């Protein structure tokens, strides 16, 4: 039973979107198993729905929104530290995603 704080936007997606924040150390069910948040995750951020290999496309809304730059474990935070754009690099402040 997927944690109600997580939202699946399209059946083919490999990420889930947070409807509410999850605190560091909290356990949550990502639908195919359980994970523990290794950092505080804010509303609107994404976690992996399954293991994602380096080079694999990230799917949200059923569309490709980027490429994994390193392996991402199921339940892990999917963001600027492990995903790159296929178009232009993302600008973020230095401590983003860590």
């Amino acid at each position, binding site marked *: 039973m997927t944690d109600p704080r997580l939202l699946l936007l399209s059946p083919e997606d490999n990420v889930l979107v947070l409807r509410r924040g999850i605190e560091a150390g909290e356990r949550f069910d990502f639908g195919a198993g359980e994970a523990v948040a290794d950092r505080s995750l804010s*509303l*609107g951020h994404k976690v992996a729905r399954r293991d994602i290999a380096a080079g694999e496309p990230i799917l949200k809304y059923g*569309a490709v*929104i*980027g490429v994994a730059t390193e392996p991402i474990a199921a339940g892990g935070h999917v*963001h600027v530290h492990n995903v790159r754009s296929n178009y*232009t690099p993302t*600008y973020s*402040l230095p401590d*983003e995603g860590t």
Partner: protein
Amino acid sequence: MSAFAGYPRSDGRKGIRNVLVVAYLVEYAHHVAREITLRFRDRDVHLIGFPGCYPNDYAQRMMRALCTHPNVGGALLLSLGCESFNARLLREEIAATGRPVKTITIQQVGGTRAAIDEGEAFVAEHLPALEAAERLPMEASELVIGTICGGSDGTSGITGNPAAGRAFDKLIAEGAACIFEETGELIGCEHIMAARAATPALAAELEASVAKAARYYATLGYGSFAAGNATGGLTTIEEKSMGAYAKSGASPIVGLLKPGDLPPTGGLYLLDVVPDGEVRFGFPNINDNAEIAELMACGAHINLFVTGRGSVVGSAISPVIKICANPETYRRMADDMDVDAGRILEGHAELDEVGAEIRDLVLAVAGGAKTRSEDLGHQEFILTYKSFEPIGPACLPAAE
């Protein structure tokens, strides 16, 4: 039974406000123009202007479109006297529409104080007539509505943007023209979007406009993506694009506009905001208000502004309806927000319900109800250098 009442203009359009604009034609006239507007605070006297001293066809076209916008009833132009802006041409274009207009040249009238006094006298003379002007019945089909998202986060594409899209679908069904924009925030969705074009030739134009944006931003080295987008959970420009694209709703796309082009029919239009030619003047739009100015130049009476992180801006000339996508932001900033779309995320409302609420609010605001940003006195405005080629023949539907 008409929906509301509007101010008739000589070109056949109607306005939902009757603003007197005070427009500086170069930065050196900005202070004088601002001082004049401050003497009429809380009345519909709005400050707009162009800061540059050197010629720019786009700025000239934008100022003409804005000073003859249906929400504008008169204009006061402030010139220093030696800038490149063609004040005479702009004044003639405004006068030709029957609106009261005057140019004050600061060098000629004798400096700051004299220019402020003369400007104040002009506004005092014409404002009462604008405030007392008769309104005629107006229909939803006569409206032009724009949409923009700013301060987007991971909630924007799930709640606020699709809700704005539902409102667009409803307004288009009633005959309104609706405009979505920022081709640089459609990068990655161009093929899905092109599939909604009314003609194959328009589909090619839509794809080309996004390809142009991708090239332009790649040259700049940045996407249309701010640090706060990442803090809010957005990871890439194509992710932001997918969310932004939802603002367009589900109607067929009937045309592609560039700033200053007026939609000839109702229906859904894309506004191409990325300059043509080589990268010359830096960022296509340095902030959200630059985009709002361009939507207004295409005749937008009202703009729907979707924010997740929490923007506070309004605009000169056309009211801004703020749709808050993020429930946490809404709780912090409710005073600035017209619509709480974040409740969709918490299961308290359906998309369609919020879409209907936005549509109803558009008609209420068109009828004179004040938006939050109007109430708070927000009248942000910016206009910068750009360069565009005219749109191609495939871009517009035949006028009705």
